[in-house]
Each structure stands twice: as structure tokens, then as C-alpha cells.
């Protein structure tokens, strides 16, 4: 086991190196002038000044020299200048990440609880009406384009009923959090609202979070439901379940005491990856709901042809995913000791 972890940890820098080469390869497809945004905040129009920048930062030098300089910059936390956010990319990520994390957390909890519950119930009532209904619900769920679902719920709950507005906060709440008396602890408004003793801000933030969280959740419920269902079905066919039934345990004890805990193993590991997926997959949802997080920043940067920002976010997302994969693999082993990771 420890051998496996060490091997994976040794490979980790290699994968990160590969990731950086891939990103850098994409950067090199840009013109030298566009790449100048890696180093300067404002690209001048004057051709002489542009040439000066290209010379100064060696944007016409051989690739390996440029790569070395770029990597050195990244290791010092300098990802370039984001013309979309009008601040350094690193600072932009720090600013927008809490919003994305908050949205991901608020959709993650209902996804796991409801998805698992539905999946387990579907498996217990295999091939009955409940199972078929759960199946239709889940197929439609993962066929639903996020942005179509988002636009439809906005049409009903915002444009028509005026219940849940887009954005992150109402105007008055936005003024409240920027006022001097309000202390920003995490950048997550629901948490900060409570910590500052302002339940009205907490509720306002929650009201804005409801629709995007629902949109993210509906698509992902399908995934958790399927995993929970098939894993539970497999468990219910195991010999030890038959033994438990044979020795006279009640149906409740067999299902919830014996089968469900083991069926949860794949659900938990998929859940870990799902959380990462939520952090990375919010591009569309944040755009539809005009929710100012990393996803919206990535989308706006892409539209702006601001490749430096997009690549900065992609690099971070990739790094998070690689590490999360490793953690999930190791977690898997602890949950199910039969799995050997050699």
C-alpha cells in the first residue's frame, strides 16, 4: 500500500510536468504579442513598443528557454495578467474561487443525500414502478443540457414568479458586505453572513444560490443515483446477504445494516470526484446565472480571447483533479481493504 502511494507520489510531478507542457504547448500556439500578457499588464498599440516587450521577455527565443521562464514564473505564483478581470490571474483566482466553492458545496450536499437515497430505493424495489421512475428521472437528468435547464428554471422562478433572482447578492446586501463593519472571513457569503451575525445576508445569498445549485444538482443526481443503484443491486445478490436472510434477520436489518454500508463504497469515491467535477464544471451554470465565480471568469476570458486567464484556470483545475484522483484512490483502499493497489 505505502509502496503504491510512494509510486503515485513520484509520478505526480511527472504528470504535473506533462500538464504544464500541454498548457505551454497551447500557449505557444498564440502569437508572441498575445503571449506578452503573461508578463505585462497592458499591451501597447505602438509596434515599436510591442517589439520592445517581445525582446525584453524573449518571446521569440527558442521554446525551451521560454518554457523555463514561464515555469519559473508559475512556481512563483505568477500566472500572468488577466485582462478580463483586470488583475493578476492568481489574484483573480483567489477572488473568485470562494464563490465557486460555495456553489459547489451547496449543490454537493443535496446531490449526495438525495441521489444515494433514490438509488438505494430503486435497487431495493428493483424493476418496480419506483425503479422505473428513478430511471426516467435519471436519464432525463443527464440528458438535460445544463444551460437549457438553467434557462427554464430562470424562466419560471425568476422571470415569471420573481422568487429566485440570478447573481450572487441583492444590491442592498452587496452594499452591506462592502461596508466597513462587515468582516470577510471566507469570501463565501452564506458563511460570512452567519459569522457576522447577519442572517438577512445569509438568506439573501441562499436565495441566489438556490437555482444554480439546483441546476448543478439535477444533472449530477443521475450519476450518483446510477452508481448507488447498481452497487446496491450487486450487494443484494451477494452470498453474505443470502446468509443474513437465512439466519432470520429482518428485511430492514439485511438491507440497511448489511447491504447498504458496503454499497456506499463506490458512492463515496465517486462523490469525491464529483466534488472536484463541480468545482471545475461550473462554467456553464455560472454563466447562465451570472454568478461571479471562476467558471464565469473562464467563460468571459474565453470570449475575450484572453487565453492567459483561461490557461491559468485550466492549470489550477488540472492540478486539483490530479491530486483529487490520488486521494480518491487511497480512500478507496481504506474503505475496501480487498482492493490492492499494486
Amino acid at each position: 500500500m505505502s509502496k503504491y502511494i510512494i509510486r503515485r507520489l513520484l509520478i505526480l510531478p511527472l504528470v504535473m510536468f506533462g500538464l504544464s507542457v500541454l498548457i505551454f504547448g497551447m500557449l505557444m500556439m498564440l502569437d508572441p504579442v498575445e503571449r506578452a500578457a503573461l508578463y505585462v499588464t497592458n499591451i501597447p498599440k505602438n509596434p515599436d513598443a510591442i517589439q520592445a516587450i517581445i525582446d525584453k521577455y524573449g518571446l521569440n527565443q527558442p521554446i525551451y528557454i521560454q518554457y523555463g521562464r514561464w515555469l519559473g514564473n508559475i512556481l512563483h505564483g505568477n500566472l500572468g495578467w488577466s485582462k478580463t478581470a483586470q488583475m493578476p490571474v492568481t489574484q483573480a483566482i483567489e477572488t473568485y474561487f470562494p464563490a465557486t466553492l460555495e456553489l459547489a458545496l451547496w449543490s454537493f450536499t443535496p446531490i449526495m443525500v438525495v441521489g444515494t437515497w433514490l438509488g438505494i430505493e430503486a435497487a431495493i424495489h428493483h424493476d418496480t414502478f419506483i425503479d422505473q421512475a428513478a430511471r426516467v428521472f435519471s436519464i432525463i437528468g443527464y440528458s438535460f443540457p445544463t444551460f437549457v435547464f438553467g434557462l427554464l428554471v430562470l424562466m419560471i422562478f425568476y422571470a415569471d414568479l420573481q422568487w429566485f433572482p440570478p447573481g450572487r447578492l441583492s444590491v442592498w446586501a452587496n452594499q452591506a458586505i462592502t461596508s466597513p463593519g462587515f468582516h470577510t472571513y471566507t469570501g463565501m457569503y452564506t458563511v460570512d453572513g452567519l459569522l457576522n451575525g447577519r442572517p438577512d445576508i445569509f438568506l439573501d445569498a441562499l436565495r441566489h444560490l438556490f437555482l444554480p445549485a439546483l441546476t448543478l444538482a439535477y444533472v449530477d443526481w443521475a450519476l450518483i443515483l446510477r452508481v448507488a443503484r447498481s452497487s446496491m443491486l450487486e450487494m443484494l445478490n451477494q452470498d453474505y446477504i443470502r446468509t443474513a436472510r437465512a439466519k432470520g434477520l429482518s428485511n430492514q436489518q439485511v438491507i440497511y445494516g448489511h447491504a447498504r454500508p458496503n454499497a456506499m463504497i463506490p458512492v463515496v469515491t465517486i462523490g469525491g470526484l464529483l466534488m472536484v467535477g463541480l468545482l471545475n464544471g461550473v462554467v456553464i451554470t455560472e454563466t447562465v446565472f451570472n454568478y461571479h465565480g471562476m467558471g464565469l471568469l473562464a467563460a468571459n476570458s474565453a470570449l475575450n480571447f484572453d487565453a492567459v486567464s483561461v490557461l491559468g484556470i485550466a492549470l489550477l483545475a488540472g492540478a486539483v483533479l490530479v491530486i483529487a484522483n490520488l486521494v480518491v484512490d487511497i480512500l478507496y483502499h481504506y474503505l475496501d481493504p480487498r482492493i490492492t493497489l499494486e
Partner: protein
Amino acid sequence: MVTESKRLIRPDTATAQTLAPRSRVPAWLIALLKNPVSITGTALVVAFVVVAVFAPLIAPPPIPSEPYQIPRQGFLSEPQPPAQGEPMGTTQGQYDIFYGVVWGTRTAFKIGLIVTSLTFLIGGMVGAVSGYIGGWADEIIQRIVEIFLAFPFLLAALTLATILGAKIQNGLITGMIALVVFGWPGYTRLIRGDILAVKNMDYVMAARVVGVPNWRILFRHIIPNSFYSLLVVASLDVGTNVLTFAALSFLGLGTSEGYADWGQLLSYARNWIPTLNTHWWIVVFPGLALLLFVLAFNLIGDAFRDALDPRMSTRV
């Protein structure tokens, strides 16, 4: 397991080759034909094929040389409700939604089929080489695959489409390139896993012992075994690829202005969110087309999976 042992005693002769497909196909095909899920999915796909094939008759293009350019009913900004001659209304800029939905079906098939077959081919070949040759080649290929998979798919496609967008003006092509470049590694993993699973089975060993050449073992014995499971993934992926492309289009990175494409039609709705209840048709019609298209392929893929996976059919 029964089929494996049957194959084991069957020599690699002409009769075995003619028998093999016949004995394998009917079981899952019959299951599919009886399944209401796959029937619904197939009916939907057939309906979309009909719309795509007969698009010139359903919505005759005003300029025959540019059928994918949606005709405009004027230049007014505000979307107009369904009316005589525009059964689904117009969206922002007076683009005819009905025309866009009909010709967008062709765009969707183009994207789905081209992207899926390219990713399938590239990923399948790389995976077959990786799994069958093994050793250092496998190690290198798998590390490369890992790097590609380390990117979140949509963000990766978004990044590449952004960069290519500055060079190639055709958004349809840049979007598809982005989907292929980051789509093939998934197949590589799948087919490699399948090959590793059957590579050391007795019947493959037997074939090797009697001197069947490597490529023949790969194409006659190993690939047919994993082919159907790959087909499931591929059919699910037609839907997913169309969906991802529509997402790129929705963000403004897809097709050029006025091109018949569902994602682009939907992107116009972004500017009318506060009044969507009075402009419902700009979301509902193109949204429904996209949802049903993706749903159709997912239904077929889902039924395929059940038909091919005996574990899922056991009763509790």
C-alpha cells in the same frame, strides 16, 4: 463465461468464423427490440434522421447555396412570437427559430457522428496498441492519457477552442477539433482495460500457440470481444459530444453568427433572461430539440448496457 468456454474449444477455422457473429448477436438484439426504453430512443433517432434528411423540404432554404444560414425576418432586436410562416417564432435579430431547429438537426448529426467516430478511431487504436504491446509503450501512452484526462473536459475544450478561434475563423471546425483532442483518451483507457482482461485468456493463448499472427489475434479475437461495450459508450457519446459542442456554442465559441445550430439559438436567450416568461419560445423550442436529441442517444446507450450486462437483469 459460457461463451468463453465455447470459444475455447472452438478452433480458429472458417466454420468458427461464420458461426461466431450469428451466435452472439441475437441475444442482445432481441433484448433491445423488446425494451421500451430502446424503442423510444430508436424512434426519436429515426425522427431526427427524417428531419435531417428532408430538411430542404421541411424548411426550404431561401439561398440554396447557403442552406445553413438562418433567414432573418427583419432586423428588429426583440424576439417575435410564433405566427403564420414562423411556427416557432423568431429569436433576437429575427432569426427564424423553426428553420434553425430543422437545419440544426443536420449540424447536430454532423458534429455527433464526426467527433464520435474520430475519437473512437484514435482512442481505440492507441488503446489497442497500449494494451496489446504492453511494457514501456503502455507505460508512456498511459502517462500521456493521464495528462489529457487531468484536464476537466469542458474547460479543456473551451481553452483549445479559444486559442484555435484566433487562428481559424470557422467555429464549427475549431469546436470539433477541441472535442476530438480532449475526447480520445477516454476510449484509450476503455479498450486497453478490455484488452488486458482478455489478453491472457486461454483461448488467446491457444491462438498464439498455434501460430496465429499478432494482428490477427488482435482483430479476430480481442477487439470483437470488447466491441459491443465500446459501442455502448460510443452511442452515449454521440449525445454527449453534441451537448458539449452546444455548450461551447452557447458560450459564444461555436458556430458563426446566424449558422443553424441549436447551441447558438439558445445563446440568444441569454440577453432576455428577465423577460423569458414573455419570450418563452426562444428557449423552449431549441432547448427541446437539444434535450430530445441527447435523450435519444442516451436511451439507446442505456438499453444497450442493460442488454449486454447480465448482472443488471438479475431479480432481487
